[in-house]
């Protein structure tokens, strides 16, 4: 039986005078890919940033692998095995692809210190990374930057990946490659919490789904249930999957 790796209970987050999260309850099970859906401004990105400690929860608890991490700093949270790919990808544009990857590999002082088999696996998922290894990351296309952002998150084994809208602004062909890469990633039993607005993308990957609105989780369950229920989609997301295919 699968156990939760990440649990949010009654999480409230304020940013300045604004109350963004209003008691978020969310579970991410080990080895599963959970998709967080919702319209713009629903609180999805704030949820990821709160988990990562970039914004502090004003109340509630964020438990990771049984430990309450809500008062931990961002580096401490990262050291517990959580990797974060922000919406803006967080690429260091003045650094090369190689340098970006080296930074993400905390245990490596030089690129030679990175596990060669793992690096080859990442190259297999994202061949463009090998091709543009010595190029400044700022010169990559939007899709390549997204690949680099994800490649960076998986260059060393992590317990949980938090990924914010990886399909945003990408061409359909690149999105399809992303889906293929995520499917391969899922085979390694990596736990993923993925924020998405592209339901078609989310449907193909998600084991579980949670839908946010107004800073709360308004639905959670199996992705297959939501994908197969157009009325529910219409009610929760204001769309039907058919309209997105």
């Amino acid at each position: 039986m699968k156990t939760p790796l990440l649990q949010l209970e009654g999480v409230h987050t304020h940013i300045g005078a604004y109350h963004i999260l209003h008691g978020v309850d969310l579970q991410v099970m080990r080895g599963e890919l959970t998709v967080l859906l919702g319209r713009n401004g629903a609180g999805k990105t704030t949820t990821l940033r709160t988990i990562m400690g970039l914004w502090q929860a004003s109340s509630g608890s964020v438990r990771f692998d049984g430990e309450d991490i809500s008062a931990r700093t961002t580096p401490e949270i990262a050291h517990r095995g959580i990797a974060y790919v922000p919406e803006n990808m967080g690429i260091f544009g003045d650094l090369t692809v190689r340098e970006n990857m080296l930074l993400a590999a905390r245990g490596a002082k030089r690129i030679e210190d990175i596990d060669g088999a793992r690096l080859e696996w990442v190259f297999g998922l994202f061949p463009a990374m090998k091709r543009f290894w010595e190029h400044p990351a700022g010169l990559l296309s939007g899709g390549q930057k997204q690949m680099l952002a994800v490649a960076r998150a998986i260059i060393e084994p992590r317990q949980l990946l938090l990924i914010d809208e990886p399909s945003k602004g990408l061409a359909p062909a690149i999105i399809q490659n992303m889906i293929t890469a995520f499917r391969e990633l899922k085979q390694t039993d990596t736990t993923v919490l993925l924020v998405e607005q592209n339901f078609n993308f989310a449907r193909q990957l998600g084991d579980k789904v949670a839908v946010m609105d107004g800073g709360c989780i308004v639905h959670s369950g199996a992705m297959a249930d939501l994908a197969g229920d157009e009325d529910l989609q219409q009610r929760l997301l204001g769309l039907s999957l058919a309209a997105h295919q």
Partner: protein
Amino acid sequence: MTASTTTLAQDALPAVKLDRIPLLLLPVLALAALPLIGSFSTWVTLTFAGLAMGMIIFIIASGLTLVFGLMDVLNFGHGVFITLGAFLAVSVLGRMTGWTESPSLLRNLLAVLPAMAAAMVVAGGVGFAFERLIIRPVYGQPLKQIMITMGGMIVGVELIKVIWGAQAIPLPLPTAFRGSLLFGEAAVEKYRLISVVVGLSVFAVMFWVLSRTKLGLLIRAGVQDREMVESLGYRIGRLFIGVFVAGSALAGLGGVMWGMYQQTITPEMGGQINVLLFIVIIIGGMGSVGGCFIGSLLVGLVANYAGFLAPKVALFSNILLMVIVLMWRPEGLYPVGKR
């Protein structure tokens, strides 16, 4: 683990190009000054003087630009580390007059190097306390940073006056550093050559650290997006303290160099140089070490050429240089790609 996907995004990237135009400014400026100056030997003398001045400014300003780049901290108190370095040099060298007045270059160096080391260690230590006590409470509050760091400098200068007195103190060059070397008809002061060598050495070490070590990668990444650096698991606060201490230590070293360059030091010298430092880091692109290097040399050359050609213009020549550069490149010569 198996490789899986098809080829991704095969479109070629634009060729990697180094932006050479700012680099070309230096030879272009120097060559443009040659016909105006008229005499080749005078031009060589002025050019070396400008490069030496620029190198010392770079040593002082490099830490300041990194501190801004990493944490958006505008430290108007940087000048106090310069003054502290210069006064420490007076104290150390004053106890070693037998060595500084010896004609032996080796004995002179054995006096100057401990003075430099003392200046760097003490300025670095004071920088650590300055960051903890003065800057840390005002992270993310630029207006308060300006006020409190200026206040910190005023307090620091007054403390220096308490220890060393308010009067100007001579800081004579060691014997072997005095005089000039002749290259044909051009006379180049030995100390200026030494300043160029020290400045280039500092630049080379800094370049090596920033480009070849993981610490340097972290600093460069932190200048671009500190939040992402933290998300990767690195403590940017510790990195910042390290850079702040190193920047303060370099300012202390620069204070020793600048004091010997001027041969007289005053408690106000740091505050006076502060203006030049900010011109340099703005010209270079806030947070860019390479830009700071080019900016420092440009400022040094312009100050010396203008001082010779039009002394009245020299008073505002560096401001004019900054205005021209910013009209051409509003974010400086090498803007740092932030967030």
